[in-house]
């Protein structure tokens, strides 16, 4: 199997607010291999966007605590000072497509120029050279050369999303983080963007982290799935395992709650609500909604290893393997 590209250990990001400290990312560990797509799945408010921000170091000013180790290839990027991180990692090795960034394109710069811009800033390429490269990347994401000289407002939502994608890919990063790249788009547009991503993944050596709340979308790209709940990863597994036989009760219930087009089983809602990130309950954070809750759930479960590269943070699996993985 191919080498590990990104290793994240005990990543944490807490915010300071007037109401108290929000533990948006609270000790997250995972790794990604080269040309692998990891989907971070979670409901709104589970901290999945903060995870992206923490990896990319696009942080708001009210960060109360930031911790953990991030290793990209051979480089311990979490140890780099901000300036070096920006120069050596951001865009060139690690790119982020933020949520709704298709609406954040500069309205007065032509599409081609916008895609070429990162190259001119990062590598100091000439306009001509950068534009040539931009054309290549735009074609890769399915934007024809006719659109090069257009302004963002002349493009449909789907086209703008492709442009944003091209901007992220133009400097050939090793890892692209996509935060809800299709959630604002129509069904057919969504499908064709996902098609484009699949094609890119096949053609380039790029790895992806796809952040989404939509289970069906997540299955469109995932080699692996990491399910996030209340600031923690509750299960990390290969896609086949996760969509076939999820281990964590929350994973199982989430899968059962998804309305399906081709099956007649009625979806089952998950009772209750996720806990507040201000003051998450001690012990298992899902315990309150869990039908299998038992005494040990009052303690914080470690991530148990259920197989090679399969972990679940649930006491039900303590006996299965008896081989705690990362722990807390």
């Amino acid at each position, binding site marked *: 199997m191919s080498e590990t590209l990104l290793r994240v250990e005990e990543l944490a990001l807490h915010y300071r607010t007037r109401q108290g400290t929000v533990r948006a990312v609270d000790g997250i560990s995972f790794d990604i291999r080269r040309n692998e*797509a990891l989907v971070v799945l979670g409901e709104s408010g589970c901290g999945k966007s903060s995870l992206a921000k923490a990896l990319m170091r696009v942080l708001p000013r009210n960060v109360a605590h930031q911790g953990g180790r991030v290793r990209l290839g051979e480089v311990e990027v979490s140890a780099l000072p901000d300036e070096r991180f920006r120069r050596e990692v951001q865009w060139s090795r690690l790119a982020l497509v933020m949520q709704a960034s298709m609406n954040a394109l500069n309205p007065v710069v032509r599409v081609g120029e916008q895609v070429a811009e990162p190259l001119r800033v990062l590598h100091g390429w000439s306009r001509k050279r950068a534009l040539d490269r931009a054309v290549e990347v735009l074609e890769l994401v399915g934007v024809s050369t006719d659109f090069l000289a257009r302004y963002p407002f002349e493009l449909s939502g789907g086209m703008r999303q492709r442009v944003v994608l091209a901007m992220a890919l133009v400097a050939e990063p090793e890892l692209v983080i996509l935060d809800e790249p299709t959630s604002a788009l129509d069904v057919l547009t969504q499908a*064709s963007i996902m098609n484009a991503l*699949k094609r890119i993944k096949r053609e380039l050596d790029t790895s992806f982290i796809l952040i989404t*709340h939509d289970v069906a979308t997540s299955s469109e790209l995932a080699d692996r799935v990491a399910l996030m709940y209340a600031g923690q990863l509750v299960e990390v597994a290969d896609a086949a395992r996760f969509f076939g036989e999820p281990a964590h009760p929350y994973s199982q219930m989430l899968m059962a709650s998804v309305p*399906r087009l081709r099956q007649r089983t009625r979806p089952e809602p998950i009772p209750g609500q996720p806990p507040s990130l201000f003051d998450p309950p001690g012990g298992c954070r899902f315990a309150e909604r869990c039908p299998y809750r038992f005494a040990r759930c009052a303690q914080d479960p470690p991530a148990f290893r259920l197989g090679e590269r399969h972990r679940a943070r649930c006491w039900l699996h303590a006996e299965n393997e008896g081989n705690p993985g990362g722990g807390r």
Partner: protein
Amino acid sequence: MSNREMAETRSAGESPLLAVEGLHTWFELRQWGFLRVGSVRAVDGVDFALERGEAVAFVGESGCGKSSLARTLLGLHRPTRGEVRFGGRSLGALKGRELKAYRAEVGYVQQDPYGALPPFLDVGRILAEPLIIHGVKARAERERRIRAALEEVRLSPAEEYLSKFPHMLSGGQQQRVVIARALILAPSLVIADEPVSMLDASVRVEILELLWRIQQERELTLAFITHDLSTVRHYAERIFVMYAGRVVESASVDDLLDHPQHPYTQALLAALADPDAANATRLREVPAGEPPSLLHPPAACRFHPRCPHFMAGLCDRDDPPDFEPRHGHRSACWLHR
């Protein structure tokens, strides 16, 4: 007996609750406030009838006219042409008191639950507003109905929610308040425009179940508008698929999802996946191009520029009529000719 069976056994002579005939809702584009430069044909020739106690879904992508249709049915837009008849009376003829009475008959559930609630009013006051407007003067009576509505949408105990402001509630709770408000005037028709698209996966099902249960209990007519076919199966009896201002296909839910007839519906279904690890390795078939501009829609069949079965000289020349390729299953496509 299920609703579906009831609808079938209903006597043929009974008039439908809502009948829509040749409905067009166009928005005129004007320059400098008076110069007409064109019309956006949001709804462009739609016919259907909803029976009492029936739950139907209108499905389509953004810009297909489904929300404009909803607003026309709600009396928020005037039809440009055609007619909406409610209980036998034409909506266009209603004025003043009659229009107000019609508004009590039609409940409205919107997409964005937070935006749908005035942020400066508490839940009790939000629910009191429709009652006050419709002349429920006695405070005790209002309180009784507000409590009943909150209990009905499973926000209990009601006291806990009465004095809360919308921002203190979760998205699902906000949407429950919106539903309670839509129900508080005891309407016979509820129009739900994308009621769950802004909610989380686990909350979506809760809200859909709630709407479904209320529809069953109250024998409401429910028009459920969505872009997501996968949420339709268990929560509607009939589906209308809309494209570029028109209904292209309509059938019972199972028939439509299992045997889609119109090429557009087929494309929509092909683009949608149920969660499955195999999805990641399959490219989906997506028709080329984008939904047409409603300002200058394509001639004849609106889908013909994107259609894999395009027949030159036919699809781009004559509007396809509604064919009935299967029993009770209508599709506006020349393929069925």
